[in-house]
């Protein structure tokens, strides 16, 4: 899944991984075959019946088992050539037909948390506690994330937690945090302690940005953004909306690899997108305008907006749009990206919260986007990319895949090799991390904020005055 525009080194790595995977798949195939033979033996009786019926019916006219001794009398099919041309996965070398084998693994009881030795706490978030731990058998260091369970909740285990587990289980990408397994507390008569065993990653991007004396170099920003886009593209390709992308949910290891974490808000979607999705997603500072305006039907473009916010944050080390509440957030968005017009966002007026919105006229000084002026050091391609990601109209934002092909990543300076990435003193390693001031993602079950008409006209009339006064003041509070 690694991007095509990656450096040679990254490609080699991906190739090696692919090769290993193919090899593994081959071995798996062998194993499955052996297994099937055993299974079939156990069900000889049924198989005999099968043979009887098949022979009696006389409908089978082929022989595809060139590689195993025939168990019973068969006719040889003359239709071999036609099959070879149409069948998927024909092995060109020997002419033997090679069918795809699907391996879904097996199922069984999960292990106990006692297989791990807790080292130290890392963080306490809204959705659980994370601590560093060592697997006793292998000595491997992992992160244990405990699922927050409210025993008084008569709905049972939290659906967000179960979704997170399922999605992490399904994901396999170098820029998405890996879940090794789920373990439970020793007392299995009552399942109260559920832990996700995640790969341990040293840093989160948020604390790095807060502590670094100098901002990232342009090449480093490119590496990070490229990895982020590649991870997000993988998720979207697999029909997953993350819905809470922000720097504190992006982890960075000491080899310069970025990993997307925390799928507490994520969910599977289809195409067309489900009609009624909750608007209560994404931390306010990273929330797309269509969500703020109450769109119930939204697409992967909301994640792309968050990626744009993160891009801006990587450049300045400060969150890009730190609104105090929904209306303030929207005002900041319009200040940065311009006022939506019928040209820039045709569907905008139809959104539920847009009706009461009174916007300054077209003549107002700040109706255009100010991205260019806010990032004077960014190249033209960079500005083009950022403006695209932060397009007000969700349909005009590039997809994560398209983003990877953007010229920005091909221009000099080229993305820095991950291995050459600077390292940072680990915080997760030893001491307890302090809690972030970033607002949390909205909690499930809260009422969606209905931006009333009153709110809006008030804010924007104030804003008009402000404009006349001398442009927007965007100093951070």
């Amino acid at each position, binding site marked *: 899944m690694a991007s095509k525009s990656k450096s040679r080194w990254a490609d080699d790595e991906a190739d090696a991984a692919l090769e290993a995977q193919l090899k593994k798949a081959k071995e798996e195939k062998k194993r499955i075959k052996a297994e099937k033979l*055993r299974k079939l033996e156990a069900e000889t009786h049924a198989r005999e019946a099968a043979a009887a*019926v098949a022979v009696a019916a006389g*409908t089978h006219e082929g022989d595809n088992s060139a590689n195993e001794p025939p168990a019973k009398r068969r006719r040889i099919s003359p239709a071999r050539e036609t099959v070879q041309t149409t069948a*998927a996965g024909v092995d060109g070398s020997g002419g033997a037909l090679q*069918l795809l084998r699907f391996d*879904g693994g097996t199922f069984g009881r999960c292990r106990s948390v006692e297989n791990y030795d807790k080292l130290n706490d890392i963080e306490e978030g809204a959705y659980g506690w994370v601590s560093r731990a060592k697997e006793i058998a292998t000595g491997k260091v992992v992160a244990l994330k405990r699922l927050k369970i409210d025993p008084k909740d008569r709905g049972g285990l939290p659906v967000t937690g*179960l979704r997170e587990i399922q999605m992490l289980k399904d994901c396999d990408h170098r820029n998405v945090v890996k879940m090794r397994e789920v373990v439970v507390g020793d007392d299995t008569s009552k*399942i109260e302690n559920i832990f996700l065993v995640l790969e341990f990653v040293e840093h989160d991007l948020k604390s790095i940005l807060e502590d670094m004396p100098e901002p990232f170099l342009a090449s480093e920003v490119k590496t990070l953004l490229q990895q982020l886009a590649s991870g997000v593209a993988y998720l979207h390709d697999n029909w997953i909306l993350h819905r809470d992308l922000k720097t504190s949910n992006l982890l960075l290891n000491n080899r310069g690899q970025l990993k997307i974490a925390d799928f507490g808000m994520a969910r599977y979607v289809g195409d067309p997108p489900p009609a009624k999705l909750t608007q209560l997603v994404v931390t306010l500072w990273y929330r797309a305008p269509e969500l703020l305006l109450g769109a119930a039907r939204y697409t992967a473009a909301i994640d792309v907006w968050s990626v744009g916010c993160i891009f801006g944050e990587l450049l300045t080390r400060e969150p890009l749009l730190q609104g105090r509440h929904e209306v303030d957030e929207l005002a900041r968005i319009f200040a940065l990206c311009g006022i939506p017009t019928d040209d820039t966002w045709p569907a905008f007026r139809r959104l539920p919260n847009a009706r009461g919105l009174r916007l300054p006229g077209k003549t107002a000084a700040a109706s255009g986007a100010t991205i260019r002026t806010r990032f004077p050091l960014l190249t033209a391609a960079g500005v083009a990319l950022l403006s695209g990601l932060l397009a007000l109209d969700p349909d005009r934002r590039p997809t994560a895949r398209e983003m990877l092909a953007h010229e920005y990543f091909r221009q000099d300076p080229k993305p820095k090799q991950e291995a050459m990435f600077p390292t940072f003193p680990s915080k997760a390693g030893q001491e307890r991390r302090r809690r972030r001031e970033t607002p949390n993602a909205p909690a499930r079950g809260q009422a969606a904020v209905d931006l009333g008409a009153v709110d809006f006209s008030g804010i924007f009339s104030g804003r008009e005055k402000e404009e006349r006064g001398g442009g927007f003041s965007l100093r951070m509070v």
Partner: protein
Amino acid sequence: MSHMTNPLATPDQLFQRRSYGALPIELQDAIFFATQCLTQAAGILLELPQSVTAQANVLLARYWLVEPPMSHEFSDVSAATLYLVAKLSPTPRSPRDLSNTYFYLLSPHTSFFRPPNSPPPPPPPPTAPPASASPSHLPTESTYLRFHTRLLHLEAHILHALSFNTHAALPHPLAITYLQALDFLHVRKETVARTTIQYLNAALLSPQMLYLTHQPNALAVAAVYNAARDVGAKMPECEWWEVFDVEREELGFLVVGMRSLVGWGAQMRRELDEMTGGKGGMVRRRDVEAELGRRGIRVGNGEGDGGGGPEGSGLDAEEEMARRMDEKMAEVEMAS
């Protein structure tokens, strides 16, 4: 790819099933069949899409390969899997709805598993009970609370047994895609598609647990093959199943497995009828224990594999007592 693949049972798991607490395999099959039917009936009454109910069927089958069936009441396991899958789907159902539905399905009012000549069932309003509904159609508050507690307990238990993997890929969409690729074999789309889906749904009830031993693509091809034969459609001359990555051997096995279900289902119903003492309705643990008593096999309350745990016996002493008395009565009746 995970949307098309399922975790499969290991040979060990399939083998182990034969050793659960000395429960004869035909009894296990009967329990399996009855419980899967119960899940389907509940899914219909709860107006859940078949994709949700079918996933619940698959999870339940997996669960019973990890945990012996006798460790919990069958209907509770059915309710818990359905609750869990519905919760994760776009169509969640409340514990109250489930409680009402299962109470109704287990009550003597239903036509569920009753011989067709029994008196017609009263109109069932299980999910949205009007105020005038006779009280015996609805569980009492305490019955509901106990059901709810068991539901939540079992939900966690099932997730633990399955390593929290609730993923179940269904062959139904694949089967339709394959039919489209085959141009619906030049017969009426509706007929052949319906028959295909019917085969796939029936296969959920199979004691051979086809959904745990074969990947969705194989199930889909087998159902298409069977449906084509049933409606007399002309299939391609070549080995078209290989296009869909199914071997002839596998296809043959599945085709027979699916076709044998009709006769087997009828036999199961006779057996279940006997087990419930001719009363019909859903088979319960006490029926199975009584049956075992008749056969002279003693089996503990799921103690065979130590998976029973204290909840089965300790949770509800009153119910346990009632169960004992029922058993006793059955024995007395047998003796007389």
